[in-house]
């Protein structure tokens, strides 16, 4: 087409056993352009960028970089050719220092001292200050991402790939990131930006390629379309509207008072005097950047960690000294963020996975003995009621897609008819239709008179679902505010603004 194309893909195809991950994908990224790659989970975005970065080889098609054929045998070859990538799940090494991490991402790193000096200089030039001697484990999520970005910048890449970079950032940190990307683009770097956040793509990207089921379905200027239109292209149909009607706040169900817990381990966060009140029929949203105490709060409510007496009461009864099964019996149910390995045992069948939480309330376990038939029929009813796509309850949890497993996990709790349900990240990494289903089921549960707490990093989700909003920041929970009329900027400030900026600027 024209000479400014930095990267071009023509007819790329890739198959896995049973899945066509990419099919005849063609697009190009120009110099100085921030190019969005948009698509649902499972649309083939990750496979595509892994091929560009040399982690996976395409079955068909051709790629070119700066006009030359691009066929990297491994990521090192891709880096040598001028491709750099910031991963969604950071590819960092916790116990190593910033400088060591950056050296690992470079082909020929300079000697230690020189590298440290360059890190300090480049990070200041881009307004992303970093201390090269710090260990990764001591950094916040935003700072960790800075390490990834600086690692890329030191290689002067021609093409920079960013895989869902803002999912762990506060709105302010995200702004800072886009300012950096703009600077880079102005220097002629091509940026491939992967996301499913429509608003940020509309404000910041110059061009968008939309993937669905592994194929390019459209290419457009995202600024010329509404978020709704983009979503329709991504999902391939109109989005269903969520029904928020028919709920009214009743009596107080769950009360958390002055809940303080030390950090469970070096990576954890201490909870500092957390208090909240949840009424029947109410949905309370708790926002916050990952790692600010979400998991610890959920563990304290589940009973995985025990807190001082009187800190957690359900309908007047003190639950604080009780273990998880007793709390479930009392009506406090939970669904953790991590589906595989926390909310479900990956290698167990769906039938067996019902036994994790539903033993007492559903009569699946009597006198310590398991009623396998009852467990199977409960699993079947969850599968039917929550539209879990699976051949049957004998299938292992691992074999389900993220969305289907999430529906199963939420359904397992909802069908136990809880008084209070606490969910953490209920739609993380779930396709749009499953996410809508899960959200609707939480609203329906509240309408029937249960109290629901939704812990999430997805602010749009919280604004859509909850009546009240609190922010969790470094283990402290803010006062609740009504969600009506709350703006993203206000929320961002509640979440602690640009995290750790002052600290790093020293």
């Amino acid at each position, binding site marked *: 087409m024209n000479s400014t194309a930095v990267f071009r893909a023509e007819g790329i195809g890739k198959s896995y*056993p049973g899945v066509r991950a990419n099919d005849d994908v063609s697009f190009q990224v120009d110099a100085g352009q921030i190019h969005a790659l948009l698509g649902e989970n499972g649309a083939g975005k990750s496979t595509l960028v892994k091929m560009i970065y040399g982690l996976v080889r395409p*079955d068909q098609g051709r790629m070119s970089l700066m006009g030359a054929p691009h066929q990297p045998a491994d990521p090192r070859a891709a880096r040598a050719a001028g491709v750099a990538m910031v991963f969604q799940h950071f590819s960092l090494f916790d116990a190593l220092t910033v400088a060591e991490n950056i050296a690992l991402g470079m082909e020929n790193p300079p000697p230690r001292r020189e590298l440290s000096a360059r890190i300090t200089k480049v990070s200041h030039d881009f307004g992303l200050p970093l201390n090269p001697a710090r260990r990764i484990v001591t950094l916040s999520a935003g700072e960790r991402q800075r390490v990834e970005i600086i690692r890329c910048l030191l290689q002067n890449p021609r093409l920079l790939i960013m895989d869902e970079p803002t999912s762990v950032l506060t709105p302010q940190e995200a702004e800072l990131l886009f300012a950096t990307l703009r600077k880079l683009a102005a220097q002629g770097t091509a940026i491939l930006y992967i996301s499913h956040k429509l608003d940020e793509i509309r404000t910041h990207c110059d061009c968008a390629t939309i993937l669905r089921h592994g194929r390019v379905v459209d290419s457009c200027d995202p600024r010329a379309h509404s978020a709704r239109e983009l979503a329709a292209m991504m999902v391939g149909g109109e989005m269903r509207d969520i029904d928020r009607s028919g709920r009214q706040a009743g009596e107080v169900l769950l009360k958390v008072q002055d809940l303080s817990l030390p950090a469970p381990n070096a990576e954890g966060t201490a909870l500092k005097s957390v208090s909240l009140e949840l009424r029947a029929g109410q949905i309370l949203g708790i926002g916050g950047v990952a790692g600010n105490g979400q998991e610890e709060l959920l563990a304290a409510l*589940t*009973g*995985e960690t025990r807190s001082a007496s009187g800190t957690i009461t359900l309908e007047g009864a003190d639950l604080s000294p009780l*273990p*998880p*099964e007793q709390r479930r019996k009392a009506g406090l149910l*939970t669904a*953790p963020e*991590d589906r*595989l*390995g*926390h*909310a*479900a*045992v*990956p*290698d*167990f*069948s769906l039938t*067996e996975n019902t*036994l*994790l*939480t539903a*033993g007492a309330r559903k009569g699946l*376990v009597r006198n*310590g*003995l*398991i009623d396998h038939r009852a467990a199977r029929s409960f699993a079947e009813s969850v599968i039917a009621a929550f539209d879990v796509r699976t051949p049957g309850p*004998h*299938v*292992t949890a*691992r*074999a389900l897609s993220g969305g289907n497993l999430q529906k199963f996990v939420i359904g397992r709790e909802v069908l136990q008819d809880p008084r209070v349900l606490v969910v953490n990240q209920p739609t993380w990494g779930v396709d749009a239709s499953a996410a809508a289903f899960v959200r609707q089921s939480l609203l329906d549960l509240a309408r029937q008179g249960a109290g629901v707490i939704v812990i999430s990093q997805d602010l749009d989700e919280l604004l859509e679902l909850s009546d009240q909003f609190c922010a969790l920041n470094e283990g402290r929970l803010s006062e609740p505010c009504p969600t009506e009329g709350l703006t993203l900027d206000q929320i961002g400030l509640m979440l602690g603004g640009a995290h750790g900026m002052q600290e790093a600027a020293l």
Partner: protein
Amino acid sequence: MIRLVPRSTASTFWQVATPVMAVLATMIAGGVLFAIMGHDPVTAIRTIFWDPLFGPAAAYSRPQLLVKAAPLILIASGLAIGFRAGIWNIGAEGQYIIGGLTGGAVALAAYPSEGAWIFPAMVIAGAAGGWAWGMIPALLRNWFGASEILVSLMLVYVAQRVAAWMAFGPMKNPEGFGFPGSRNLQQYPAASNPELIAGTGAHWGVVAAAVAVLVTWVLVSRHIRGFHIRAAGSAPRAARFAGVNPATLVAFCLGLSGALAGMAGLFEVAGPAGQITDKLGTGYGFTAIIVAFLGRLHPVGILLAGLLLALTYIGGELAQLTMQLPAATVQVFQGMLLFFLLGFDVLTRFRIQRKGQS
């Protein structure tokens, strides 16, 4: 090239087939080894795996099968519970020795009085001794995070020295003409663990092993505690979410396997061995690890695997006598068996695919 694709459901067929394949592969590899050492491989394999049951001297060796299998099965049943939960008690040998000592101590203290209470008290003391020895690594892990693998293993060496000390010191037979070793309990009817049915080799340890198999079977397949144990081994966080307290689980698993190993030690001291010596530990505690894996941590599998490894013990002794094979042959066989099993195990968890060219 080939590649491994994880299975969505563990293959039941391969779960049963891999131990059988491992046994066959061990026979073949063992045969090659014997050929290298200048023995006739067919004769050697027949001597080890066939003659103890059906050979000319089978009448003598057949009862030995239950004698050797009982401690293996008893210990392995307990170990398998822990292994399922990801709790690695590899010090069963030490718990076995201590159980033999504490159980034997009751008999030596009661000597020469008679009474029906003596033998049951010995069994309880043996189980308690093994339990206590198993609780040391459990508590050190729960309180300080010390690795139960290393602590339980170190305690084997400590237990061996305790046994030696006892055999040469406090428990030495005062009428033993200065030879090390305790009184012979086979000559002390109230404390002995005799053959219950003549010609079968079945003593009380065999009964206990059968009960252990049944109880652990119910525990693993029907009881919620068994479910929690499996969950803890497969996904520890999910188990905690379900309500499992990790510290309790560690204490339960190490305590249970310790008690069963201690009981096995007592039955041996009161029965086939007859006395406490510095050679009290004969490696059953380590071989039981192989039994547990070969039996796929399943009680029924452990029953079969225990019988098979007991066979290799007897066959090995036979081969030593008739073919002058070194005594360590059995150990090599058992090690190979575990190697092949772990290797073939890949088939139960992965499908093997040819890497496509296109």
